[in-house]
């Protein structure tokens, strides 16, 4: 006869495993319908500034196809790792397998991950902090 503690241990282990698997799989799950929001990403500048303050490398990435352009934030986390994440207003952050320093590779990997068939015509890192600094300077005057 099995001790009651064994049943409890089994239930706890199963629950913990399920939770941990959910936490890990959720990162890559395509949970939301995708919608481009006219190339706007108002959180980009502040997000990048906040990340840089805690030593996380982050850039705004502008992606262009023949039909549209779109902005996302690319960041490497944990710092000094090779884990590259792409943040979008709707899809939130998704991990992509690409060289963080290569904007076209990151854009291509992200579109593939999002299930978007368009080919990347151009992709480049943009610096929204210049705009933010300008705003801050203006408000101080």
């Amino acid at each position, binding site marked *: 006869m099995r001790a009651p503690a064994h049943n409890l241990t089994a239930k706890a282990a199963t629950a913990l495993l399920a939770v941990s698997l959910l936490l890990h799989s959720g990162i890559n799950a395509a949970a939301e319908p995708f*919608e481009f929001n006219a190339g706007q*990403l*108002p959180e980009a500048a502040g997000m990048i500034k906040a990340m840089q303050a805690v030593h996380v490398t982050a850039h705004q990435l502008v992606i262009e196809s023949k039909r549209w352009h779109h902005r996302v934030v690319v960041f490497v986390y944990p710092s000094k790792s090779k884990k590259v994440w792409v943040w979008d207003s709707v899809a*939130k952050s998704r991990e992509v397998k690409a060289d963080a320093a290569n904007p076209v590779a990151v854009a291509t990997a992200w579109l593939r991950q999002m299930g978007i068939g368009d080919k990347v015509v151009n992709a480049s890192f943009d610096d929204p902090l210049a705009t933010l600094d300008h705003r801050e300077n203006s408000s101080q005057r």
Partner: protein
Amino acid sequence: MPIAVAVTQPGYFMTLMRQLLLATSLALLAPLALAQPHKQELDQLPGQWAAHVSNGDFGELANLYLSDALLHQDFDQQELHGSKQIAEFYAGYAGHLPKIVITKINESRVMDAVGLLGGSFSITYADQHVVKGHFSLVCQWIDGKWQIEIQHNVRAKPE
């Protein structure tokens, strides 16, 4: 106990497997918990925002934001600067407050003193029209609490 004997005794084998499963689960969870301090408090922020707006607690609402916070709301072209202006915007609904429900959180990440949150909400206005959307929050851990630095709300794609 020799392995050959262990695998022929289902009770022992199952116990061993369960213990292995537990150890694996704990090993998977421990780094997540350690790497993300104050995550629980971060996860509570969207619900607090929704409750303070819905209940008209504008003082409490203002306290959720940094004094130089930015709220950008695509669906009504609102771009509000600062906790005071944000609270005043919602106070403008006094008497016909919208009811906000957080329907999902699909991003919650703590990076040192920076928190990223994302999810979905449903706003029911006094005239009963409903806006479903997605929110993004960039938060800062300052003086022992999370405060919203940037909030970006976008309308969800129609189903």
